[in-house]
């Protein structure tokens, strides 16, 4: 009998351990997804090797918190917009939009002329890395200005004891002189699910669905459904979502898309190019393709539906 008990225990131990690991890994994942992330934003002046901190701000919030860093001088403006997403346990996806505007001079009629620059960058980073932004380039010479953005796990969790989402916080430890540097933060949903369907005479003939991040370009292949056995072409929707807005009764988001017809040789023919619209979350909206070369003489429509992805909150 003791032997049986021993064998039972011997068999159970691995199962118990694996279950425990599974549970703990799930727990750690759920814990990490509930943990807040603090972004330390330091504006630093470097002069002949000496560093001087001009301003220091910490933005803290749940994963998916976005922030803007604005730099404003007499003749120069910069807006750096950061979209942050936790894509793995210790990996952040940072998408930036950098817009600068500089007074260049004056026209013959004494009107101001501005030089503008727009850049977009995407970086994947871990928590042992930092992002450094050089508003005036990195070849500064004796004087150089930079903004260091350092992520850290916060000790606070995202949910209050009552189970509500803790609001994001901006802590200005050191303001800049004259308000030259300012930081703003916001938390809006980043992950969405997009469904697209091709309709002929009101019946669905192809459909596709995909999760995506806001401001991320995605391709959606529409697969023929059972009713469309005669449909041999492949349809592809190339889309991106942007400009999420909280409104009443439902939130809205902008969708920009192109619709292609792809042949077997993978050559693409554009059916609809640079179309866009405003989607209310959870509602369907439809585009009539009758005016396109593909749809002329036929009753084709393209229908979309955008929802928050599973687990995403607004």
């Amino acid at each position: 009998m003791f032997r049986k008990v021993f064998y039972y225990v011997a068999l159970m131990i691995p199962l118990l351990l694996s279950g425990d690991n599974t549970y703990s890994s799930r727990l750690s994942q759920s814990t990490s997804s509930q943990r807040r992330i603090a972004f330390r934003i330091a504006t630093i002046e470097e002069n002949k090797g000496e560093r001087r901190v001009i301003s220091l701000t910490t933005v803290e919030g749940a994963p998916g918190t976005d922030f803007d860093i604005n730099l404003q001088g007499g003749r120069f403006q910069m807006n750096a917009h950061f979209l942050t997403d936790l894509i793995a346990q210790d990996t952040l996806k940072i998408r930036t939009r950098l817009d600068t505007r500089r007074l260049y001079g004056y026209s013959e009629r004494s009107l101001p002329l501005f030089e503008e620059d727009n850049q977009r960058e995407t970086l994947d980073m871990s928590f042992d890395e930092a992002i450094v932004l050089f508003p005036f380039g990195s070849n500064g010479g004796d004087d150089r200005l930079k903004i260091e953005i350092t992520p850290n796990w916060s000790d606070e969790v995202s949910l209050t004891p009552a189970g509500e989402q803790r609001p994001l916080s901006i802590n200005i430890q050191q303001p800049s002189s004259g308000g030259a540097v300012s930081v703003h933060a916001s938390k809006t949903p980043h992950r969405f699910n997009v469904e697209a369907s091709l309709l002929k005479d009101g019946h669905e003939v192809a459909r596709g669905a995909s999760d995506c991040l806001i401001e991320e370009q995605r391709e959606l292949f529409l697969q023929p459904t059972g009713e469309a056995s005669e449909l041999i072409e492949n349809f592809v929707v190339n889309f991106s979502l942007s400009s999420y807005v909280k409104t009443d009764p439902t939130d809205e988001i902008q969708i920009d898309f192109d619709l292609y017809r792809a042949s077997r040789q993978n050559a693409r023919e554009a059916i609809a190019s640079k179309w866009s619209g405003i989607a209310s979350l959870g509602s369907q909206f439809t585009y009539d393709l009758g005016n396109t070369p593909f749809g002329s003489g036929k009753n084709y429509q393209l229908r979309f539906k955008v929802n928050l992805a599973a687990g995403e909150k607004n």
Partner: protein
Amino acid sequence: MARDNDEFAIIFDEIYPGLCRFLECMLGRHNIAQDIAQETFMRLYRLGPDSLPREQARFWLFRVARNLALNEINKTKTRQNLWQKIAGVSQQNETDPADTLEQQEEVMKLHRLLQTLPTHQRASLLLREQEEMSYREIARVLETSESKVKTDIFRARCALRTKWREFEGRS
């Protein structure tokens, strides 16, 4: 101090081109106009940020610029005949090589005609036409009476009108 410099830069951006234009027409010369404009703004900067309300800076600047221009004119004044002096001015007048010949001639003609006016009439007329100041504002800049400004402008117009016709007739 950064805010003071920004404030000064705004005033500089707003007024500098107009001041250069005024001085060029007062002096009949291009490069010296820019030097005097620079000196005028330097004096404002040295006054300090709180010495002058922003709305008064424009009048102050034009007053100082006019005074500096008069100093310059008196320095180079000679006893030559009026038309000989004009001929000398027209030769000294630096023109932008990018301008067409026609544009250069038009500018020179205007400068020549303005140089025939007494300085007080010239200043009043330029402040009226270029800066669109009222008679009251011009009187404030030039530290004189409104009625004198009114008379100076009218006489300047009449004189230029006559000389313009003479010039057109001659050419």
